[in-house]
């Protein structure tokens, strides 16, 4: 079981992030007042991702990667987005902060993932799964993208808990 989850959890996270991306973009565009701000949100994400990537790469003890916290962290961001029902005045400031957190965590996760044995296998699988998933989702009519974003957030939190339990069992 341990072996399976070691293989599948990162794949679920990677595939999920790509699949959720279009929905996330719709939400992000809705809360951006201008295209400039929308683009700046992306820039903030990218800079933060570079930072997160290097944080992991520079880590001395890579076995202690706390990846379950990364899953939970990303999941919490998506769940929080699901709670935002109406735009409010300070939302752009909050979104900027969420973009930085998301970028930082995703950059860290990606750096960790590239150093896993299964990474190259996942790369191929994730492209295929995303392709089929997106064809499937194209037939699903949605009223608001936040429904999927929240579901994905919860899934990530679950992955985090699973990973935590797995690590605990492994250490015992």
């Amino acid at each position, binding site marked *: 079981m341990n072996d399976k989850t070691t293989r599948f959890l990162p794949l679920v996270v990677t595939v999920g992030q790509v699949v959720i991306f279009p929905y996330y973009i719709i939400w992000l565009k809705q809360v951006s007042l201008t295209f*400039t701000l929308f683009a700046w949100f992306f820039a903030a994400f990218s*800079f933060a991702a*570079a930072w997160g990537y*290097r944080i992991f790469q520079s880590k001395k003890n890579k076995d202690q990667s706390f990846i379950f916290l990364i899953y939970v962290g990303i999941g919490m961001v998506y769940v929080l987005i699901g709670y935002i029902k109406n*735009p409010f*005045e300070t939302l752009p400031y909050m979104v900027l*902060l969420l973009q930085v957190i998301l970028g930082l965590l995703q950059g860290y996760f990606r750096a960790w993932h590239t150093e896993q044995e299964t990474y190259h296998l996942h790369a191929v699988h994730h492209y295929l799964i995303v392709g089929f998933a997106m064809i499937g989702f194209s037939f699903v009519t949605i009223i608001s993208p936040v429904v999927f974003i929240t579901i994905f957030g919860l899934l990530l939190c679950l992955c985090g808990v699973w990973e935590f339990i797995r690590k605990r069992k492994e250490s015992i």
Partner: protein
Amino acid sequence: MKKLTNLFKKPWFLGSIVVIFITVVLWNNPIEKRKYGLSQSSLVTDYTGLLPERVERVVVADNREDLQRIVKRANDNGQQISVAGLQHSQGGHTYYKDGVVIDMRTFNRILELDERQKTIRVEAGATWEDVQEALLPYGLALKVTQSQSIFTIGGSLSVNAHGRDIRFGSMAETVEEMTLLTPTGEIKNVTRDDLDEWMKYVFGGYGLFGVILDVTLQLTDNDLYVIQTEKLKTSEYESYFTQLVDHQNTAMHYARLSVAPSSFLNEMYIINYNYTDKQDQKDFLKKEQGVRLSKIALDMGRQGGALEDLFWAMQKRYIASIHGKEITRNNAMRSESTFMEYTKPGRVEVLQEFFVPVDAYEDYIHNLKQVISADDKTDDFKVHNITIRYAAKDSFTTLNYAKEDMVGLVVLMQHGVKEEAVTNATSIIQRWTDVTLKHGGTYYLPYYRYQTKNQFRRSYPAWENFANEKLRRDPNEVFQNMFYDYYIK
């Protein structure tokens, strides 16, 4: 290059980039603007959005002949017409149920500028900013305009607005000539000595006496002023202001009255623009400055309590810091406005303005303390700012708010939009209006209709004359709006 590549590998460096970037983004985050007006997809509103209404259609003003045809057809078909500019009035003055709205914003050309006579002829849909831009190269400025340049000329004249100038009288008095599309569809050139006295009804006539097509405005020099600021007690203001008007060395003036709990209605800050005998040598109109910082400060003040005290302290510090600085007349007449944007769902910020005779000011403010609470932190109805302006005696327009030299209190207030909250706000504002009337004052009409019909009639005793003239000049009542419907009809 290698050094740079190595630098980019350092997590602290990448972290610094993130921190710097988010600081830049936070500072430049655009301010959300209120969505209102004719561009709404279903119901038309004005700036507050409190009176949404369905209209038959919106006609974009293009040329005089088309407008004339629309008015004549409306007379024949029994249609109603309203006139809209930038719709900053707040009481449904620019639209009417199932009526036709003429959108004047595209009717905005500068027609003629006479440098020697110091006059400018401009179409009514132009903004004061358009006029200022046209005047700048000639070293000229407006005699009277609003303190912000975002409004249309036609709109400001229709509400007979006023600003910071204390020397040139009312805005209506600075108009030499006007081209008017009358309610029966005639295009008339109207001068100040016109026997029919059209100007008397059109200015401050809230769009009920036809369409202002263009006006010729008197101009003055774009003088350079030095800013003088002073802190006063409310009790000192009457004598201070009387002396200020007599001494003639101040061109423009306004003040702020504290609404912060610890100095509530007791402290004031004065801002004067004093003559320097110099004129502007540089061709520039200031753009909005410090918008983000001003918005953060105002948002803080909106919280009430200690934060409102802090906001007042910041305002005082800022006002003291501009003492002695020089500014041109044009720039003194174009204050920032974006920082006041407020878009919180379920709440609305509105303006009200009350006028009292200069010599009644102290007593009036004293009595006002019984009407509004010093600390409105937990109240639904909140007062954020009171600006004091001077409104010179106006014996020209019919619905005149300054029957003698008046002090105007421009009040920025906030309340919820649910029925209970609006009822509560209405009750407070009606009590405020009663206090104002008791001191021989009036209130301003371009805002939301909180006041009762009786309060309107007591404030504007000439309303009957206004109503009779309306029926005489517009027998088919073609020009209509919600204000007319509610108070005058």
